């Protein structure tokens, strides 16, 4: 059982809310993968399956006006921050009704109304941009917090190091969430990274760094809660390294020959979502009927979103030329 029992655990409502987010991510991912496998849809797909608890753990601390920045493997972050299911599906499918009119695609989901402000496909590049959101909040004296998500591999790129240092020096209200799934594309972290824990790097920039079991929703909730509160209070940034595992490799179609079979089997056997569900029931935080109702609602929501997206039109050809500048500019 991955979930910690602590006296200062979140209240029941929060626990169930976290489960609801996780379940939404899991169900959505499962639908994407089954539709891709059956050939109903075709797109480049980076499954977040296995990493659900991380997004759920920070998202329940955020307000709608807080910002989230994420990466191509971002579906879990998008859903956790509240990007609407229909528009999300439509964007993945390249439809005019998508979050970005079908022009950005899955790697660039953007929904400012939910606070999901940037999704980037360039490894590490969201980190400096997150600082900009933090700076804007600091300058305008709001207490908005920015959470920026990235992988273990991203901690080896210059943007990470420059961004971490600047955030510390300027005491920016940014929480750096390194979702350490142990691989960057086909390379295990140990072959690309000089430290055992990414969180060690925080010390080099003068900010707190913690490593947390990203598959333990309560532990993640605590770590994120502290970091977000610190940022909101104007005390500066924190690096959270959330240890997890990607169940389905780098992207859909990955042969995964570089991932030891036993390692993957063990990770999937310890699937954090059903484990959390069982923990909620065992500890009397929720009833079977309550969770089943949530799950049914999510399935219906996904059914509806799939139908909506599949029945939505492609963007009109004029859209090729709009949004390059504010006005069409030769």
């Amino acid at each position: 059982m991955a979930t910690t029992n602590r006296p200062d655990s979140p209240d029941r409502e929060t626990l169930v809310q976290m489960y609801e987010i996780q379940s939404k991510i899991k169900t959505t991912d499962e639908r994407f993968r089954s539709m891709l496998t059956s050939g109903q849809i075709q797109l480049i797909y980076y499954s977040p399956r296995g990493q659900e608890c991380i997004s759920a753990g920070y998202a329940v601390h955020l307000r709608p006006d807080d910002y989230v920045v994420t990466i191509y493997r971002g579906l879990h972050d998008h859903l956790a921050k509240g990007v609407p299911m229909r528009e999300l599906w439509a964007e993945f499918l390249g439809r005019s009704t998508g979050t970005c009119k079908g022009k950005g695609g899955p790697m660039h989901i953007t929904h400012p109304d939910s606070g999901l402000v940037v999704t980037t496909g360039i490894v590490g590049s969201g980190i400096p941009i997150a600082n900009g959101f933090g700076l804007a909040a600091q300058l305008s004296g709001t207490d908005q917090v920015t959470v920026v998500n990235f992988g273990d591999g991203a901690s080896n790129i210059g943007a990470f190091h420059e961004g971490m240092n600047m955030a510390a020096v300027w005491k920016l209200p940014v929480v750096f969430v390194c979702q350490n799934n142990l691989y960057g594309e086909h390379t295990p972290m140990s072959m690309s990274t000089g430290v055992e824990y990414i969180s060690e790097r925080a010390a080099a920039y003068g900010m707190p760094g913690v490593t947390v079991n990203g598959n333990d929703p309560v532990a993640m909730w605590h770590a994120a809660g502290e970091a977000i509160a610190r940022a909101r209070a104007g005390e500066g940034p924190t690096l959270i390294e959330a240890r997890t595992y990607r169940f389905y490799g780098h992207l859909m179609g990955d042969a995964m020959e570089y991932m030891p079979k036993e390692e993957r089997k063990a990770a999937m056997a310890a699937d954090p979502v059903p484990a959390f569900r069982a923990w909620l029931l065992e500890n009397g935080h929720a009833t079977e009927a309550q969770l089943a109702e949530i799950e049914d609602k999510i399935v219906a929501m996904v059914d509806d979103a799939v139908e909506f997206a599949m029945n939505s039109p492609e963007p009109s050809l004029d859209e090729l030329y709009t949004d390059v500048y504010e006005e069409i500019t030769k």
Partner: protein
Amino acid sequence: MTTTEPRIIPMGLALNEAMDIAMGLDEKVFLLGEDIAEPSGGVYKITKGLSTKYGTHRVRKTPISEAAIIGAAVGAAIAGYKPVAEIMIMDFIAVCLDQITNHAAKIRYMSGGQTTVPMVIRTSAGAGRQFGAQHSEMLEAWAVHTPGLKVVVPSNPADAKGLLISSIFDPDPVLFVEPMLMYWDPQYACDVPVGDNRIPLGKANIVREGKDVTVISYGKQVHDAVKAADILAGEGVSVEVIDLRTLVPLDEATVLASVSKTKRAVVVHEAVTRCGFGAELSSRIHEELFGTLAAPVARVGGQNTPVPYAKNLETAFVPQVADIVAAIKSLNK
């Protein structure tokens, strides 16, 4: 037994052979890039097997650190090695552009010729797979605009192999742009000679002879140009197709001789039209042949937009055979 049987292989394999041959010939040649070693052999499998054959000291898997990859290649090249660095997708060169433009390109000049940078940057590029705006661009014009860099864009497996071997042994830094869609697609496979089939940089290939109009292209669009030529042959228009192969050095002599003959030219590439390579080439043709042209040089290129995600928009972004046909017809009015 010697054989003259054609050996039809895809571009991905031809590139692998080129690196294999270069590494076998010269122990100063080494490869570096993300995921290029076994078991994956590169995300597009272009370096498959090479780390097993030559060792991981010569086929080096790197962290996700493009600036450090290119910087290390620059330093090692100055120190006498011949690095072949892989930048997985061309859009990512933006992350290491300082190392490319301020260092690889200028070091020979700034040092008065004392230090040189004989390295290759291999990168995959192009739209057509719905990878979105950050994974689909053709940015060769950035490099052409930077004196000191050579720029190669092969259009078929045999050229890819021959040009890559030449690039690796070239004394200058070469940006080697590999059209992603051509790697493993059997429709682009062709007969590739075994062994060291070096093709010199700066020598264009006349793919098809014609007398009414010259279409000049490179990379994947060469195939579209040939398709356009086929269509127009049926309408009595004779189209000459030139594959530039390398943009720097540029085989101006071949281009100008052809356009002198046909008096009409169309330049075709996938990259954004505005300030794309076609702008330069069109300008050079006008400068040299202005009085003799029967029509202004036409350009067919990508739209002046980022590359969109939705399939229909992406298709509308990329120049199509019909666009080339229309451009040629517009010159014959």
